[in-house]
């Protein structure tokens, strides 16, 4: 089992036209040319749960704080690649995953994402490739699927989401993997952003 370093995986996703926040490889604070607030992350081949290990710092409001956080991170993870992203505005959070299962082959997971996703466990699985009907069905199969219709000012665009799911399905056919997480994916009224992406082969 090999973890693909995040920067690398995210570049592949860029090439395929998946939408992600603007990303900058960080050697010095001045490498960052995006808007604030920013997020600093370690792109590691081993660390997969970053929030717990301090390998991700969010809501960095200006260049001074960025410089300070970057320094601290470099001390803590001297051998790792560090990168920064623009911090995305909040959207409806979903998880989209791919897994190569021994019995069923390649499966796509779709579920309620974010902080509570493993508590709520509202997920559903389909075999890939998906057709448009399958993608529409995914949205119907969640218990909390109504959050896509809008909740507390956040609203998702179902057409955009379905196109994204079909794109993930295409990706799954073209690539070999053991597991992939797109978690969370932020859904907006007119777009989506993959906030975090991890791949294990």
């Amino acid at each position, binding site marked *: 089992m090999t973890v693909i370093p995040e920067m690398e995986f995210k570049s592949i996703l860029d090439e395929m036209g998946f939408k992600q926040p603007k990303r900058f490889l960080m050697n010095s604070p001045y490498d960052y040319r995006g808007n604030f607030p920013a997020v600093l992350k370690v792109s590691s081949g081993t660390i997969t749960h970053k929030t717990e290990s301090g390998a991700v710092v969010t809501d960095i409001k200006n260049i001074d704080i960025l410089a300070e956080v970057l320094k601290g991170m470099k001390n803590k993870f001297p051998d790792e690649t560090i990168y920064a992203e623009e911090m995305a505005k909040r959207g409806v959070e979903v998880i989209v995953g791919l897994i190569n299962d021994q019995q069923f082959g390649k499966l796509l997971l779709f579920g309620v994402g974010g902080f509570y996703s*493993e508590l709520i466990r509202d997920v559903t*699985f389909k075999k890939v490739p998906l057709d448009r009907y399958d993608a529409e069905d995914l949205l119907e199969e969640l218990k909390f699927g109504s959050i896509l219709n809008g909740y507390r000012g956040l609203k998702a665009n179902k057409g955009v989401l379905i196109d994204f799911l079909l794109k993930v399905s295409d990706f799954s056919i073209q690539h070999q993997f053991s597991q992939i997480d797109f978690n969370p994916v932020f859904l907006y009224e007119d777009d989506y952003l993959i906030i975090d992406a991890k791949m294990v082969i």
Partner: protein
Amino acid sequence: MNLDDIFSVSSVCLIGASREEGKVGNVILKNLKKNFKGEIFLVNPAATEVEGIKCYRTIESIPHSVDLGVISLPSTKVVEAVASLAKKGCKICIPVAGGFGEQGEEGKKLEQEMIKVSSTSGTRIIGPNCVGVIIPRTGLNTALTTESKSKFPSDGSIGFISQSGALGLLAMDEFSDAGIGFSSFISLGNEIDVDETDMVTTLGRDEKTKCIAVYLEKIAEVDNFLKECKKTSEKKGIVVLKGGQTESGNRATSLHTGSLLKTSFSLKGIFRQNGIVQANNEIELIDFSSALAFAKPVKGNKVAVVSSAGGVGVVATDVLENHGFKVNKTSDALASRVGERISRIGSPFNPIDMTAEATNLQYENVIKELDSSGEFDAILAFVLFQTFGVTEDIIDFLSSFNRAGKTPIVVGVIGGEYSRVISRKIIANGVASFPSVSRAVAALGALRERGEFLRRFEK
């Protein structure tokens, strides 16, 4: 050889026929004798006749061809019998006994030998370790249960396949008790040759089968099974009750996807993708199958509720809305047309309450109005025989409306023995009928799922 032959078996040979009451070879013979329209041959070297039928000493000495052989012998003697039957040109063998692959290496070897006979001769094997086959249209019945303990299905439209013998028989008893007929009952046993995918293919081709009901514990070849179901489900409904945890081969849980697969995997999404309606228990298996066999697919969320009891309508509305259905109000025009058909103290909006003054004719008129209005995707009619003006005669209308009406209809009949007897008659007339609000609504859910799936084939 083609499994379609199972529907046209005209001669059966029972090897190991027994005169001893309660013995497998006797139970099967009695079931076989009852209704089978073809010829029956018995093999038992120690008897000249059993139950009035002549016994042959060997399979070879039967002076007639044999379409199907039932082998009621201990496992060690089965391979030889299968080989002799194959030589005779027998199309299908059913070894009933256990003591094969399920009991270890020795048994597995016996299975291998049988598979060899099957693949070289073309004889198909159902089992071993199974409880038999019932094809009501020809009277073929090799089931391992007796009439004193179980009801047997009448000829009907559900093709039932079961990997578990016991659960298969008890579900068969329940189906039959409700008045639901079978096109076939097939106990698959150890599936050394014929498996669930073969049977889905066969029942898919059978004109009489309108819905396939399956109880599974393991799926031999997942991809084939799903592919076959998807193909078949264009023509008819498939309901699967999958028992046992579905094992996943993935141990790695470093990512969220892997850990969610481990904790929260469900087949539902994959089943829906392939036109399979998932049942969560044996009652749903029965209800969903009969709904799919009898009623039209539901293509939307709007349900009209018709009843002669306000309370039933109110409860049904709650349950429907919980299932994601809409009990939308009738339009003013429709409400006034319905209003003219029912008592002045009733309610012509939805749920439609005809009150205790309801009659068969009111039901008929209201249902016709709802149908022609086009305002609803389904009609849920609670036909309550506790109401004075509602009688058994309503069945003729329900049956003809179910055939000729545009809107799918599901009937609820709530009550004790009297109501149950009439409900069976409603079902026997090919109308989907259920004995409670929640079961009727769940069945509508299955019909909606089917309706949604069929969108794929619409142009």
